[in-house]
């Protein structure tokens, strides 16, 4: 309880942190209550209402606040549903890559030697291929575009940053005297990892994870934009952008609103991450 | 009595923090005579380093320095503009620091960093600067100055680096040298060498030295006069002989008694109980009273006045009673 109070005290002290938190909470609410909030069925085509402009423009009306696309689908409703995909993919991909990277980083940093060399060289190899390229090729090759595949592919291109971060943290902590003290007590490797290394790695892990959710959302949007990510009838912000691209010159709102949505979401998550970094910094006495 | 070189009056260093204004150094006044070694002694966090940095004008934001006057060689430098101050730094006054490991820029050679001073303050050209730098390195007892001139700091031992720092600081024959714990990070045998070097250089150049340390042994070895700092204030000021013979302030007394000397094995060290209060939670009245064996209720309530006794100064209420009105009392 005291901790929660302290958490909010620290949060309110930072304007960007607060903004980030508010945005993230709002997006989560949008995703959870998309069904209740959306004024229309997001996939319902309405050929009488094609490319309707937003409500405040000439020809727009309040039944389609942000207008409709070339198939007459309500943009606001689609964006609300799109937040579901973005969040689900972003969070699942982060969890998967985080888990893989955490384990490999721990093993690599703690045990060192040949294991370390092998893991780090594999990491180097993955790092040498730009993530989006690797994801694109993999998705094409496996000829599947379900959420699970997408999550796995994004995880495959982002585990490296975790592994490297955790490894360097472990190397730093391994030399600390409290780890030595534990060793002189006869603690097993497992004990040291779980009682001394992990609790101290946790803060940076959380910060990187937050940033990684943002990265995964962008990657998902990019892949969907390229047409290899989320497929209809599922709705993704990237896919909406891709649809709107051809209408750009004549109906700017179709591509603009999902773009703003992505930007705001990423900004919110980044702000939150930056704030967490400041607060969780061990030099900063922390939570 | 020699001429006064530096006079610091009522120096205050404050920091603006989230918890409000915090005063790290308060009411510090002292003066340093020409050619004198003046020691500022105290434990970590007592404000001795901040005091010296404020003389140099090197206190960083968010620190705020206020002083009635800081007079160096007849010139009040407390309100000087940064550019004017810069002309004095490294020239009329210079400073060496505690960590010889980190005080030299790792990416430039010793020569490069030494030359800077000559080129800046003496407008020397490249060749002349090199010649002067090598000369200076030889002057501080570096065996192979041409070789050291070309090296990067990482290739030198701690003692060597501190010699380089001293050479750099003395390049322009400053009137005032501030040495902030210059031997703390060094091994004892190297410390001895550096202390001897500083004594020799002082004799040769007549430089006044403000020597900052936490080690009373070093004080006894180096100082002419000593100021003892505790929690941001000077609590006692005296000549080194008076101070060691009869410390007046209970803190000085405790500090001297708890210093280990050779041959102490058979006696039990007296200690000062407790720890220094943090500046954010400064105690009322005398700042030392929670740890003071002589503390009275009065110490808890009233900040003690600065008492002057026989050319010494002490901030303790005990002497106010003894010398009721005689000793000139400034607050």
């Amino acid at each position: 309880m005291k901790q929660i109070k302290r958490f909010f005290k620290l949060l309110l002290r930072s304007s960007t942190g607060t903004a980030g938190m508010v945005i993230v909470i709002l997006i989560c609410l949008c995703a959870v209550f998309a069904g209740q909030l959306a004024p229309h069925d997001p996939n319902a085509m309405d050929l009488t209402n094609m490319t309707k402009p937003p409500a405040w423009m000439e020809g727009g009306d309040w039944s389609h606040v942000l207008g409709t696309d070339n198939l007459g689908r309500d943009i606001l409703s689609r964006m609300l549903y799109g937040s579901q995909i973005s969040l689900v993919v972003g969070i699942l991909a982060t969890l998967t890559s985080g888990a893989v990277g955490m384990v490999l980083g721990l093993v690599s940093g703690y045990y060192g030697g040949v294991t370390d060399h092998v893991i780090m060289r594999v990491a180097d190899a993955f790092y040498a291929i730009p993530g989006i390229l690797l994801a694109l090729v993999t998705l094409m090759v496996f000829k599947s575009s379900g959420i699970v595949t997408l999550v796995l592919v994004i995880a495959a291109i982002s585990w490296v940053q975790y592994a490297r971060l955790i490894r360097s943290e472990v190397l730093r902590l391994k030399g600390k005297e409290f780890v030595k003290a534990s060793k002189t007590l006869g603690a097993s490797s497992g004990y040291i990892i779980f009682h001394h290394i992990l609790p101290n790695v946790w803060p940076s892990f959380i910060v990187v994870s937050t940033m990684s959710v943002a990265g995964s959302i962008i990657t998902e949007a990019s892949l969907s934009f390229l047409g290899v990510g989320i497929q209809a009838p599922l709705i993704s912000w990237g896919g909406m952008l891709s649809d709107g691209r051809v209408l750009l010159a004549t109906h700017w709102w179709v591509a603009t609103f999902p773009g703003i949505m992505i930007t705001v979401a990423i900004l919110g998550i980044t702000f939150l991450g930056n704030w967490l970094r400041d607060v969780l910094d061990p030099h900063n006495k922390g939570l | 009595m020699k001429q006064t070189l530096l006079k610091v009056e009522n120096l205050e260093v404050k920091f603006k923090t989230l918890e409000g204004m915090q005063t790290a150094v308060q009411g510090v006044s002292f003066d340093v005579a020409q050619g004198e070694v003046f020691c500022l002694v105290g434990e970590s966090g007592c404000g001795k380093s901040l005091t010296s940095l404020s003389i140099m004008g090197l206190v960083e934001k968010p620190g705020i320095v206020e002083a009635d006057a800081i007079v160096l060689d007849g010139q009040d430098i407390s309100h000087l503009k940064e550019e004017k101050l810069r002309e004095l730094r490294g020239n009329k006054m210079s400073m060496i620091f505690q960590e010889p490991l980190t005080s030299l820029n790792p990416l430039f050679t010793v020569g490069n960093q030494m030359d800077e001073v000559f080129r800046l303050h003496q407008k020397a050209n490249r060749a002349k600067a090199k010649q002067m730098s090598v000369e200076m390195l030889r002057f501080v007892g570096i065996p192979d100055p041409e070789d050291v001139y070309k090296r990067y700091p990482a290739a030198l031992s701690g003692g060597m680096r501190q010699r380089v720092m001293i050479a750099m600081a003395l390049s322009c024959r400053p009137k005032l040298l501030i040495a902030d714990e210059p031997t703390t990070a060094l091994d004892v045998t190297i410390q001895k060498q550096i202390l001897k070097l500083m004594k020799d250089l002082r004799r040769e150049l007549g430089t006044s030295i403000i020597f900052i340390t936490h080690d009373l042994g070093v004080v006894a070895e180096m100082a002419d006069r000593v100021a003892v700092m505790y929690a941001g204030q000077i609590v006692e000021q005296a000549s080194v002989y008076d101070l060691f013979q009869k410390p007046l302030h209970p803190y000085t007394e405790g500090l001297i008694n708890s210093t280990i000397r050779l041959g102490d094995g058979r006696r039990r060290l007296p200690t000062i109980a407790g720890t220094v209060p943090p500046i954010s939670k400064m105690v009322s009245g005398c700042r030392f009273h929670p740890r003071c064996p002589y503390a009275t209720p009065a110490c808890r309530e009233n900040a003690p006045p600065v008492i002057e006794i026989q050319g010494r100064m002490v901030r303790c209420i005990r002497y106010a009673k003894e010398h009721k009105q005689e000793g000139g009392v400034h607050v």
Partner: protein
Amino acid sequence: MGRYLLKRVVQIIPVLLILTLIIFCLVYVAGDPVALMLPPEAGEQAKAALREALGLDKPFYEQFFIYIGNLLRGDFGTSYQYNQDALSLVLERMPYSLQLAGVSLACSVVVGIVLGVAAAHFRNSPFDLLVNGFAALGQALPGFWVAIMLILLFAVKLQLLPVSGSGTWQNLVLPAATLTLVTSAKIIPLVRSNMIEVMQQDYIRTARSKGLRGSTVVFKHAFKNTLVPVITIIAMQLPTLIGGALITETIFAWPGLGMLIYRGVANLDMTVVQAGVMAVALITIVANLISDIAYCIIDPTIKYQ
């Protein structure tokens, strides 16, 4: 220093092997290209003959070794799509990629360092806030959306620049601007935080205590010390700019490597894909090596990690 570099070079060998394995696996899983290479009316016999000719009937490991052998001889296979040697295709597109990446990287580095150093210097001022805002926005904006918006504004509305294509410098402006925005946004915060950290070091205090000018302290003593991490991130950006710029290249119809690979993927032309990916990976590795050399030049005391 020599030993340090030698160690880095030796480390590249296993990385290359693993890389080849990853790429080969992707191709292997992609399956049988025979159906695509032959006309639809070709019979089973013709397919089997082609498979044998291509060595596709051999077990996985044997194919892998043949593949490595071919790579070593510079044989990347033939693209069925263009009916041309894959390597020559890659080499044809390379200059376009390098041109776009080079211009964007140069702009990003300049913008990143200037704004980063300035923001660090005027820490917590409105200017700093503005720069931070710019960096945050640059990282949050999806590159492809920026590209579309730039086209909308400069090509469609203002009609100042061409929508897409290549050949003139005008064609380069919009894609380079897109990439610069995204890349410099990553460099700025890093330069800024490093600069702030370096400015708190003891040797900066020493430099100031010598009476050096603020500008000398910043540009001589501090700046050189911030270079190592800055070079690291620059080296990290290069592959993203060369192969990872495929979306930007696609949107602006810029005929670089990214677009070549994207088309290859779309048409299941795996020879082109693997040659392209391999080329990008090699550039990455070389970029990292160059940055290692740069560290050694900047920091003479560099040792093993």
